């Protein structure tokens, strides 16, 4: 259909970014079961729309933005008590399951989940995705000042949470 959107491009971005996006989703979401769903959906959305976009170098930015948005939707729905992306991961092999289980026990993850959503998002984008504060502000639709504030408060809260006896 679209010229710029070849399977090669898909494969290429998959190899380059899929795993880090999985991490991004895992850090943003409060349940790991949805991580891969979210990343898959992000890939599908961005790539099925890719045809009309001439800026492949922005793919990662689009993917990240979509993961952030989908993760928020996930959280929102969970708050509403609705079941999101409810289909179980059908293909999750036991090896990955192990990794997900470990993740559930990770102290940092636990502490991150205790943060306010905005704080968590800022920290993850800033320090996991290595975005600049300006990029984070743009991605989250916040002012630069808010990003700084959420970031410093987030780190402080994280520090407290992780120093508490486990």
């Amino acid at each position, binding site marked *: 259909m679209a010229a710029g959107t070849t399977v090669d491009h898909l*494969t290429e971005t998959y190899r380059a970014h899929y*795993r880090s996006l999985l*991490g991004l989703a895992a850090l943003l979401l409060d349940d790991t079961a949805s991580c*891969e769903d979210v990343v898959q959906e992000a890939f599908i*959305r*961005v790539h099925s729309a890719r045809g009309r976009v001439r800026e492949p170098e922005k793919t990662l930015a689009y993917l990240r933005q979509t993961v952030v948005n989908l993760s928020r939707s996930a959280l929102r729905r969970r708050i509403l008590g609705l*079941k999101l992306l409810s289909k179980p991961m059908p293909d999750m092999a036991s090896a990955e399951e192990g990794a997900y289980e470990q993740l559930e026990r990770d102290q940092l993850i636990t502490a991150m989940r205790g943060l306010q959503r905005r704080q968590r998002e800022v920290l993850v984008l800033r320090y996991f995705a*290595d975005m600049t504060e300006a990029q984070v502000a743009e991605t*989250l639709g916040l002012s630069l000042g808010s990003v700084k504030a959420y970031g410093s408060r987030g780190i402080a809260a994280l520090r407290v949470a992780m120093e508490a006896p486990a």
Partner: protein
Amino acid sequence: MNQQFPGGPLRGEGPVDGGSGEGRSDGTTPGAPESGALDEQALRRLLRGAVDELEPSADALEQLRRAVPARRTRRRQALVGVAAAVILGGAALPALLHVASTGGITEERHTNTASAHNSQQEADEGLGDGVAEGGRARPDSPPVGKDREADEGRRPDGNKPDNEIKPSGSPGGSIPDPGNTFAAISPTCDRDQLGRGTGTVGAADKDGRVYGAFRVVNISRSVCTVAGPGTVAASARGSADSARVSVVDHTPGDAATGLPNPTAEPSEVILQPGQAYEVKFAWIPAPDGGRSGCAKNTGGATPSPGGSAAPPAAGASAAENRPTAADPGPPPPPASVVLSHTPDVGEPAIADTKIGDACAGTVYRTGPLATAP
């Protein structure tokens, strides 16, 4: 993962990538929560370490290779579907109206209701004695009845212009090009992003037709996409006939000739901060019912404002509309229809407005239309 560090846990490096060259800090003084304890570098390592073992499922790439072309196909089909729905709607409406005018309003209502749960909620809230709900079926979404929330993340049309990433890309008020597919990334407007809802109605023309609009502003600081048409609910008040008030989507060739051509409606409306969308509507009184729609059916239903105090010079002005002289009993309460708009993202209703002197008829509504900021 091993996070049992005898010292302050924050001093621990990323658990799994110990080989990254960073020195382990196992030996540091326990609990040194100095501000540097969880510094930015440490947080980077911790975050990476925490998810380092996550691996894509074995066939993740395969799934994508199948899913991406499938999604493209669905998006194409969705577009075709929209066109078909518009054409069908145009053809079917006269039939629906016929049914309606013979008393089957409730049925008609359901044919136009995509979000029955909203209807239920409003009914539960006792919004009015007769609530007709015009949820718009979305031609681009999977079959009615599928949970909207669950579906939100997976709509095939979820790709729209992304103004958030490229703020310079589209000047504020422009109607986004539905063909621009980057909005995958522009999040749908949360309910709390929408505010300053207003409803306005114009003056009735000689036949009692009233045009108006709801206006809803993106009060947040982010760009967002209007999730869908939302609902327009009509509630009969006073002596208005709730069984004969209905809400339908505006279609080409219907009686609401003053509304914009629905085929020109944008498939997505993206709101810059401060920008508003409008849902326009028209109140068309039931035929043969005079200006209010049911002048003949219920004596005296044509309301006088308040119905109570005879206006000064009553004999001169409103004789045609006000057969009060013939009323034996107390005057009936004035008939009016209250319209309310609820955004697609859900309750509560964001705006309402009242159409006075309305008793029976049909509300035609548009989808969300972008306005200049």
